[in-house]
């Protein structure tokens, strides 16, 4: 028992769980302040989250988890290699546009494989978008945070411009519907009746597993992590740290880009809106990565958790909470959970004290 309590895996998981509890407590306080009468009911709804709507709610949870698994991986993968990719938002939307563009315009590609081609396009486009900050960081030592923030805005405006130019549905001020390239449902729609879940969640989980294998089992991952932990030592060991930084950024971008493709080809009626707002899925990758401790497998669970809370938030509307309060509440839980992870040290110290006390 003592061994278990002191094991690293347990400490990591318990830190994540304690952080989540902390987030919930704070969320409850927000509810109490804004609408004391319905606070308890609303809070229970959020707690039961994805379970609220039965199989449909669970399906929605998986559907919503799909893109943020990808952006979470994007942030987490870069982080493992010592980079902070805050540009997932731009990479995500560029991927989304590329997917929609191929889906609508590439009429010469057979329907059966069009979705696959479109997703590949999203993957590549996201990677290319991250090439810029990656190159600047590796060869010019420009801070990747600043470069990728700029690329977020450039990406957003470029996509708005390109949507209007190429795949515009003027009546609705949004992109056209990619009817021919919808990701297959593979029976998930009957299992989770009424939800939008599709093959995308399986793709996302597979990609996460591949990312895990690359990071933990291959020489390439060994180099990437060495470079992230200690760049000087990786140079001393003859690794090409510049190339590694570039590649790591490109891979991170490709993950986010694929996330964009997976969301907009889901056939859930989601379109790229021509508005000046950065894609939220990109930023949600940050708390997902934090909660998952940048471990690809942890990120799968973290993304599902975040989606679960969001679905709970959706059902909270029944209690007549204004959408803003719901958003605050959801954001509070997610971000507080993620950031209280910074107190991990204290948490493991707490457990140490307790076991020492005995």
């Amino acid at each position: 028992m003592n061994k278990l309590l002191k094991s690293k895996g347990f400490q990591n998981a318990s830190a994540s769980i304690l952080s989540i509890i902390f987030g919930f407590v704070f969320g409850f306080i927000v509810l109490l302040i804004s609408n004391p009468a319905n606070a308890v009911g609303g809070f229970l709804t959020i707690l039961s989250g994805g379970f609220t709507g039965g199989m449909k709610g669970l399906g929605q949870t998986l559907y919503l988890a799909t893109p943020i698994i990808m952006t979470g991986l994007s942030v987490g993968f870069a982080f493992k290699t010592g980079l902070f990719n805050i540009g997932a938002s731009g990479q995500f939307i560029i991927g989304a546009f590329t997917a929609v563009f191929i889906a609508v315009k590439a009429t010469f590609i057979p329907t059966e494989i069009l979705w696959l081609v479109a997703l590949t396009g999203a993957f590549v486009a996201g990677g290319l978008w991250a090439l810029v900050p990656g190159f600047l960081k590796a060869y010019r030592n420009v801070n990747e945070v600043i470069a990728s923030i700029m690329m977020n805005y450039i990406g957003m405006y470029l996509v708005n411009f390109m949507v209007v130019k190429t795949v515009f549905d003027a009546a609705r001020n949004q992109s056209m519907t990619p009817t021919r390239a919808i990701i297959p449902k593979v029976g998930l729609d009957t299992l989770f009746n009424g939800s939008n879940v599709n093959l995308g969640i399986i793709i996302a989980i597979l990609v996460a597993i591949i990312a895990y294998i690359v990071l933990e089992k291959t020489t390439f991952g060994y180099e990437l992590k060495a470079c992230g932990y200690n760049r000087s030592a990786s140079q001393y060991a003859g690794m090409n740290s510049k190339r590694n930084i570039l590649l790591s950024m490109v891979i991170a971008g490709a993950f986010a880009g694929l996330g964009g493709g997976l969301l907009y080809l889901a056939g859930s009626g989601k379109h790229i809106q021509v508005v000046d707002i950065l894609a939220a899925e990109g930023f949600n990758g940050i708390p997902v990565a934090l909660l998952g401790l940048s471990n690809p497998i942890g990120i799968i669970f973290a993304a599902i958790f975040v989606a679960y809370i969001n679905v709970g938030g959706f059902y909270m509307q029944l209690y007549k909470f204004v959408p803003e309060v719901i958003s605050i509440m959801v954001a509070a839980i997610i971000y507080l959970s993620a950031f209280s992870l910074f107190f991990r040290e204290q948490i493991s110290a707490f457990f140490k004290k307790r076991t020492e006390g005995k």
Partner: protein
Amino acid sequence: MEYVIEMLNITKEFPGIIANDDITLQVRKGEIHALLGENGAGKSTLMSVLFGLYKAEKGTIKVNGQVAKIHNPNDAKKYGIGMVHQHFKLVHNFTVLENVVLGVETVENGFLKLKDAREKVEKISKQYNLFIDPDALISDISVGMEQRVEILKMLYRENEILIFDEPTAVLTPQEIDELMKIMKNLASEGKSIIFITHKLNEIKQVADRVTVLRKGKYIATVDVATTSKEEMSEMMVGRKVLFEVEKGEQKPGEVILEVKNLVVKSKHSHKNAVNNVSFKVRRGEILCIAGIEGNGQTDLVYALTGLTPIESGSLLFKGSDITHSTIRQRSVSGISHIPEDRHKHGLVLDYNLAENLVLQSYFQKDYQNNGFLKFEAIYKHATDLIQQFDIRSGEGANSKTRSMSGGNQQKAIVAREIDKNPDLLIAVQPTRGLDVGAIEYIHKKLVEQRDAGKAVLLVSLEMIEVMNVSDRILVMYEGELVGQADPRVVSQQELGLYMSGSKREVIE
């Protein structure tokens, strides 16, 4: 006799190891008390317990005869205990003065009040001959100066009990002499000092008593004056240690490395860090580059290993031109490098020992298959080296290198580089921070390399190492080679003249 510090029956465990096993340490007021023990014996751990960084499972600490509860460094400070760590903890883009007052600063109307602080710093600096400029930036001062800032920090806080964890490992011989004087001075003012070092000479020079630890256990406390160096090392290692390096006649073979008119630009000044340097290294010899720290040795090594680009000149290794080869190409073609800075270059501290031991070879067939790491082989390799080089840590191959003792980190690097079986081994300060037993072993290994017809290029600041191990000495001064000597005939004094630039000769 009255003790200022008593650590009684201290026990501290880490996963897989009892770092301190029922250790007792009693320090008298006004004495310099040395703490001696092999790498990983538990010295740093014991001091961390005293300073409140670790909490011992068992044992009591008494300060001035009273039981003291020390749970964190703030408690330690309350009892007047200060510590200079094995690796310094100064804020680099702050000035000396700002670093000194950090944590005890006085604020008035939201502004730092530095005037009184400055006066106090200047007064202390004068009193103990520290020669500190309060306005210098930490990033601009030398390692020796950084250490004095750490000392000043303790004095500023009016600490009475001063802990020095291996303060001399990073210093030049000149700086060491000065530090010894400062320490004696402090002791004569009534401060009590605990001094960790592996160098028996230093203990002989300044310490009053010494406590010896071995593998986490207390061995004895003895008077320095009546104990010989041989006795001390035997107590510490448990066997006799050879201070002389045993080696046979050298049989120099063909030239393996030829350096021609090498020039390396300096990063800090307009002068060249390495200026028109030429020399040859032969198989079967240990060539030593001697000199005072900061005379271009580091840049020379960086240029040879590929860490720094070369301005002009050329390098021939085993007959082929490697002037523009990458680090990896040089490494694979048979050059090993024990780097000067083990934390910056030598180790990925967040990797475990096994992962670090393949840092230069993970891409070789033995350790990977189609890009997949062969963990079984990697751990087998680690277990072998751990045995062979006696690398000690809590969890063997699985230990995070960050948690290992300084000397064992060094042993891990040396093991990795020698195990590559290089044609040319470039060893920079290879025995820094090692205990006498480990030094003996590493020196034996260097001689073995040479006897096997390999070449060793040794860069060392340690006069005794230079004289004992090398077959030939080149002295570097201000980026140039200024003298050549045969260690069998040259005197230390003469070497010193070359090293300080007072004497120079043309090297053919």
